[in-house]
């Protein structure tokens, strides 16, 4: 097991970054960006998720194959959920016949 201990400073730093990004999400929600409303919200959310996964969950420093496999599988499964749901949403109101 490769133990990589992060300093508590680092943890607080990440936590503050997450809080700032939460405030940014809330602020941006009050500005109308047209079609970019969802895009901006999702980009910030993805950034926050990355911070949590990489630092809080130690994935950045994980050298074990099993951990990497779990991450890849999780992302793949998320894509399955999104893509196959979009197969419905993308074509639900299309005319057929």
């Amino acid at each position: 097991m490769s133990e990589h201990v992060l300093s508590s400073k680092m943890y607080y730093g990440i936590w503050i970054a997450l809080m700032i990004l939460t405030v940014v999400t809330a602020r941006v929600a009050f500005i109308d960006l047209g079609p970019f409303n969802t895009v901006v919200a999702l980009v910030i959310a993805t950034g926050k998720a990355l911070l949590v996964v990489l630092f809080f969950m130690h994935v950045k420093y994980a050298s074990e194959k099993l951990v990497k496999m779990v991450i890849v599988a999780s992302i793949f499964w998320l894509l399955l959920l999104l893509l196959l749901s979009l197969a419905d949403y993308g074509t639900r109101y299309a005319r057929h016949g």
Partner: protein
Amino acid sequence: MATAVITPERENYLNQEYGIKSWLLTVDHKRIALLYLVSITFFFFIGGFFALLIRLELLTPAGDLVQADTYNKLFTMHGQVMIFFFLIPSIPAVLGNFLVPLMIGAKDLAFPRLNLLSWYLYIIAGALMLHCICTGGVDTGWTFYTPFSTAFSNTKVVEAGVAIFIAGFSSILTGLNFVVTIHRMRAPGMTWDRLPLFIWAHYATSVIQLLGTPVLAITLLLVVFERVFHLGIFDPTRGGDPLLFQHLFWFYSHPAVYIMILPAMAVESEVIACFTRKRIFGYKFVAMSSIAIAVFGFLVWAHHMFVAGISLYSALIFSALSYLVAVPSAIKVFNWTATMYKGSITFTTPMLYAFGFIGLFTMGGLTGLFLAALGIDVHVTDTYFVIAHFHYIMVGGAVMGYLGGLHFWWPKISGRMYPEWLGKFAALIVFLGFNLTFFPQFILGYMGMPRRYWQYPPEFQVLNVLSTAGSTILAVGYVLPMVYFLWSMRYGKPATENPWNAAGLEWKTSSPPPTFNFDQPPVVDFEAYDYEHIPEVEEVPVG
């Protein structure tokens, strides 16, 4: 060696410590398996009680025993209790918990305390569910469909949702423990291609539990939030979409069927190899078919939504993908049959359950193909055809597998033999009772009897009477094993370490095993199902 000396006084996991504390604070995977066994049996009989009330109500066409509201609650709680509190934990949490470390030659699971936590989460969830049942229950159907669950039902939706949310975490922790254990704790020489197929199937099951269950958890949480805070995720008047709930719910709940059936398949591979005295035909294909089922199982969910208003194009895709799952399932069934070909078959109780499993699972699986076909699905959606189909998979498949496995490993678990003739008798009763209960429902459904109604037109009565009669026979078949298993714990003949003369590491330690499973850490220098190198004994000793 099949002729080990019987040593009933030997120290083992059951007699090492006594007292309630030694059970409630145990971190031994075998004791936790027994804790699960007792708890899921309790919930099985609660769910079964609801089922019997449903069948009694349907004995006559009129709604006479209960009224519509009560009936809605009965089928909802039957489904929720049976699925989330019995079927999903059944084989993994009881037999899997007991056997995964034994089969791979480990002392315990990778995270023993997490294992105990998972049982406590299950108990908390179960207590909440019981409270929900006793204080009015819930009537949404086990599927919690929106908008009924979020906007209209005035029953205990939040409480049931939270109970299942917590039960989900218990399931995730079991899956996590198995994945890490199988990767990290295998005995020297236990390579991936020497793993028993029981382990392969449990690995596949764990992947589904890990990757699917969080989606169910967040979906139920969204239902709770929408109900309490009126969020609008599923409410079209606030920009939401009620079908989004069905997408998210079935993304987990379709693969959940494979959480139930894959472990039953795991049991069958062990039982069939042992009682035909042969290596499983096409070992690698059967192993890989478990992984294929786990992956393909996630690509088919919207076949539950063909008439719900999803796009025709996506319905076509999901219909085609649904046929894919039949391929690995058929590989398993064909390979088990090929294993039996020219095998030396013994008709013991576990083997009778295995035969029952193959027949009933095949019928359930093939009628699943009818339902995957867009045209037929429109005709039979929400009819008793669907009910019969999934009971053939979940009860005919998963419960048969569970009972077969419980009989097969009972000597190892309890150190005692159950009465074999009574076991065979109960297996036959279960098979007959099951078919009498559910086969008529195929016909009823095809004739158009809808599910979830408390009354029906009189022309459906004969078949419904047959079904109700069958359910009482089935109930007898389920009570019998409980009675003779309990009896055998005190009066059963002591079991040798390998009463079936079976292959596998779990049979190389005493019955019941010592707390740390093996006196000497095992080293594996043989393939799985090495039956050609196991000397024959005169006959299989039975209790």
